[in-house]
């Protein structure tokens, strides 16, 4: 499949999926200001084309390991907003019965092995899931999302080597949003780009504009096909941006309000695809879709509000089998 092969229907669905992530994140941040969410949120706003474009290349049965910024990946792989919102609200009907919260949100049945509070922990978990596919002789793959800030963890290099050594069906997707918490990557890394690191591990690496959802899909699709064919891992670096701070408590002293406004104006993957689809006359119903998505978020909030908190005895459940 080439980039031009994406049908209008697929692109419309991608636009809608991005919109759903944006609306969920904005809804969650708002609910957080109302005191309904116990703990920090790491908003995915701005990076939606990465999760949606990449996950469109996956099939049921594939695995995804995520980061602390995991809501977008979780939605993109097929989780439902209601159980996600209930998880953020700490309620019994949340995916993790309220015990994981935002930082550990997971939909294991859908193959989403969890957001993770430890930066750089996802590589090996995904590689292990990939290794099992090799053992089982299945054509399923595993994919790990990580930020550019996680590339300096030793585990990145350990897993790049192991995955290439064992030809694991693993796709490594770096979402380079330039900031590791409050620190611009130029301050902590000597790399000008992440993808070339793959070369030393005998692995294909590619850097591309993460806002170009066609290119994101094409790269992910190629990497997933390579993995399914037993040809080994790939590294994809997506240049992206987050519109919110590192977490909901981040005052963002490291960048100006103007810079953020400029990002929203010039680097929004949703408006980019929207403009393209509208120009082609393929998104006349944009407002109706927006209303649907907003209704979905409102229903998720109502679902979460109605769900009880877990019973006190649950504190000691799920420690062991």
């Amino acid at each position, binding site marked *: 499949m080439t980039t031009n092969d994406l049908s209008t229907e697929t692109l419309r669905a991608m636009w809608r999926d991005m919109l759903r992530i944006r609306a969920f994140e904005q809804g969650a941040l708002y609910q957080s200001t109302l005191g309904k969410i116990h703990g920090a949120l790491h908003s995915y706003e701005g990076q939606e084309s990465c999760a949606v474009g990449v996950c469109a290349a996956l099939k049921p049965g594939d*695995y995804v*390991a995520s980061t602390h910024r995991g809501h977008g990946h979780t939605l993109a792989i097929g989780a439902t907003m209601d159980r996600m919102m209930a998880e953020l609200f700490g309620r019994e009907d*949340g*995916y*993790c*019965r*309220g*015990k*994981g919260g935002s930082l*550990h949100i*997971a*939909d*294991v*049945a859908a193959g989403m*092995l*969890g957001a*993770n*509070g*430890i930066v750089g*922990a996802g*590589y*090996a*978990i*995904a*590689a*292990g*899931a*990939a*290794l*099992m*596919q090799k*053992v*089982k002789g299945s054509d399923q793959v*595993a994919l790990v999302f990580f930020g550019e800030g996680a590339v300096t963890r*030793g*585990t990145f290099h*350990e*897993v790049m*080597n*192991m995955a290439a*050594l*064992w030809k694991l069906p693993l796709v490594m997707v770096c979402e380079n949003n330039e900031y590791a918490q409050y620190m611009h990557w130029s301050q902590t890394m000597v790399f000008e780009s992440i993808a070339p690191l793959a070369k030393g591990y005998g692995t294909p690496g590619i850097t591309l504009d993460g806002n170009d959802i066609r290119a994101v899909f094409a790269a992910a699709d190629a990497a997933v096909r390579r993995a399914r064919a037993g040809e080994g891992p790939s590294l994809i670096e997506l240049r992206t941006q987050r519109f919110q701070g590192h977490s909901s408590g981040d005052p963002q002293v490291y960048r100006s309000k103007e810079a953020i406004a400029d990002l929203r104006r010039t680097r929004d993957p949703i408006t980019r695809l929207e403009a393209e689809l509208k120009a082609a006359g393929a998104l006349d119903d944009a407002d109706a879709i927006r209303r649907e998505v907003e209704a979905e978020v409102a229903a998720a909030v109502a679902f979460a509000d109605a769900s009880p908190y877990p019973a006190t005895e649950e504190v000691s*459940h*799920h*420690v*062991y*089998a």
Partner: protein
Amino acid sequence: MSMPETRELTFRDAIREALIEEMAAQPEMVIIGEDITPGGGTFGIHAGMAETFGARMFEAPISEASIVGVAVGAAMAGGRAVAEIMYSDFLTVCMDEIVNQAAKMRYMTGGQAEVPLVVRSPIGMTRGIAAQHSQSLEAWFAHIPGLRVAMPASPACAKGLLKTALRGRDPVVFLEHKMLYGTKGPVPAGDHLLPYGQARIVRAGDDITLIATGLTVGWACDAADRLSERGISAEVIDPRTVSPIDWETILDSVRKTSRAVVINEATLTCSVASEIAAGIGESCFAYLDGPVRRVGSPFVPKPSTPGLEKLAYPAVDEIVNQALSLMPRRQGR
């Protein structure tokens, strides 16, 4: 009931047999570790296994964190994984994967995920290899909810506890003492499994309870022999697993004997021995004839040179002396 048939096996072969049986029985079980295929590993545990199970044995680079991390991922994705870490001192390199990932995955996901993983690693003293190859870090893992921690002291315990770990659904840190690998003992034939959280009364006694783990179980038995020469009857208890701890067996014994010495090879500060001593103090205070005594390593790293090295470990003499200090004067002094 007839006695089960037993064979004499070394501790090493008992572990190997458990791995072979479960690899044969479980097609989705994998083993990951360093040097596991050429000679079966640094301690020879996997000798000869690669011929049969090579496709499921992953010869790993020196990447301990990711060896365990990959094992966690494989376990989460429907497999069963064994990670061998060559020396338990190197477990410090994979603490995130054991403590933050494996141990907590079931809980964090509200029961959606599980991690049927065994991390096997040799612990404890050997001659002269000093501070980074000789530690007993079981307390680090016993401290973490979500992990089970086994410290077998005999070949039969090694096989039975490992088989149970390999059938269970929770992560287990399985700590094998290097000095025990060559020791021999009877191991029941057939499908031998031992429960976690069930101590073994190694020898029965009435006057004092010696609770010991791993290599020090043998030392406690030596101490009990010497105490018996003085007419003191010591009960020796091996908890076998230090998470969970079989409190019932320990406390029942102390209520009977009114005296306890808790022994482990680890540095005594914040050790499993300290935990057991505290538990006895809390639950059996009224039964005790004296303070609960502890024997363990002093608060120093392990030196290499032999004269200093022996000072950095506990010894049988110390167990005997601590036991005698608790006895009425006519017996003890």
